[in-house]
């Protein structure tokens, strides 16, 4: 089981998709928004808040795409091969979750570093590691949603569907454009969405504030819901 975890960690570390899609893309978006577009009339520090948004956006993708790999490996018969080894079924899932959890760290760290250097974001020293941890915790529901997708759909279609969900949830959650710019009805909806609450952990930390009870409740609710969905799909797929 440890040997398989090692293999999965190795894979997540050298996957070009992880590097480009989940680290390079959020980084590029961050620079585009803060250096080129520079939205006017905001009442808050856009460089800092968008740094959190993009780090969350990248990490969220990493968490979701755990499911993409599961769907592919289910389809190409690798899971069948694993089923005839001593590795228990939960061993596979654990390896995926742990390697996924490690795999999202570069997306977070790279965007935070870009904020600190290129974006000129200044924060108390203790806030930086706190941000990384909060963003990391905030994307847990997406890992569950990814697993649910991985055991529901086959091959590339899972990745395509997840791309759609990824895009929708991150736009709705105000990671691309702040929710302050949304019409009020959409904004209310946005505030109950998982991506907004994941982001808000970090946004509040910028101001030195603890996460609100609502944030934690909403995130826990989504996590439970997606985990239940994942467990149901997992059992169906066995």
């Amino acid at each position, binding site marked *: 089981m440890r*040997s398989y975890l090692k*293999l999965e960690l190795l894979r997540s570390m050298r996957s070009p998709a992880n590097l480009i899609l989940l680290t390079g893309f959020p980084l590029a978006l961050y620079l585009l928004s803060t250096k080129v577009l520079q939205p006017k009339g905001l009442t808050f520090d856009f460089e800092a808040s968008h740094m959190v948004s993009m780090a969350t956006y990248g990490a969220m993708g990493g968490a979701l795409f755990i499911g993409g790999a599961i769907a592919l490996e289910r389809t190409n018969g690798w899971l069948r091969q694993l*089923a005839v*080894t001593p590795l228990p079924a939960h061993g596979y899932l654990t390896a995926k979750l742990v390697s996924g959890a490690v795999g999202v760290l570069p997306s977070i760290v790279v965007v935070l570093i870009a904020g600190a250097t290129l974006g000129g974001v200044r924060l108390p020293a203790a806030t930086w590691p706190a941000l990384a941890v909060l963003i990391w915790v905030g994307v847990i529901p997406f890992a569950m949603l990814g697993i649910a997708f991985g055991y529901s759909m086959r091959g590339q279609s899972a990745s395509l569907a997840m791309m759609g969900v990824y895009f929708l949830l991150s736009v709705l959650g105000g990671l691309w454009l702040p929710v302050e710019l949304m019409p009020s009805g959409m904004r209310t909806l946005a505030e109950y969405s998982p991506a907004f609450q994941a982001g808000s952990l970090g946004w509040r930390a910028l101001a030195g504030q603890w996460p609100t009870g609502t944030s934690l409740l909403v995130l826990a609710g989504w996590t439970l819901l997606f985990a239940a969905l994942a467990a149901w799909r997992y059992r169906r797929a066995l």
Partner: protein
Amino acid sequence: MLGPNGAGKSTMLSIALGLRAADTGTTKVFGSSPVEALKAGHVGVLLQEAGLLEDVRVSELVEAVAGMYAKPLPAVQTMRAAGVEQLAGKRIGQLSGGQRQRVRFALALAGDPKLLVLDEPTVGLDVDSRRSLWQHVRERVEAGSTVVFATHYLTEADDYADRVVLLSEGRIVADGPVEQIKALVGGLEVRFTWKDADPGRLESLPGVRQVHIDGPAVTLRTNDSDATLRALFLDLHEIKDVRTTATDLESAFVSLTGGND
């Protein structure tokens, strides 16, 4: 386990390995359920068309699988036995079909299991790889482990199996030592050309079980090819281009089950 394509060999192995549930009956492997035997690391398996991870190196995959077993062979030794040591540093995505099959064989061997289960292990392998695979299988059997394999090649069963279970349409039609099965399907085919073949004379030749005439092309299926050939050369001077081939199992099956050619 011998049978034509679609006879139920893979299904039977899937049940034996706990990948599928049996409609009736129970499955035991080393006295426990298949899943428990697999978990305990007693079984190494090569599945037909099993997927592999495309983005890892051969050595990495073999090491990861070996690490799941309590007493694995060193990865280098496994790779040598499966004939993939030259490919150790290659990504699996770059391998050919035959090379991938050898990697699957390496994964089956990695844990040094008591029981090796191979489903159509030589599919896609060239002659040399086939020979070295069977040679390794033989070594394992001599060292005391058990190898169960499925094949649709009669010759593979003939050369490497002590016991043959013959399957047809999901049923066991024969189970016993290889000689017994060979007698049942009728060992060899004798082919030749004879312009105006006389079926009556052919059927009366010693050993002949079945006669098939297609224009000038004649195929005899015989139990005793020596006797058939001797009589053929002595009695029938008109025939040409005589050759014998091992009975193709698929066509032998057709004759056994009474279907048309």
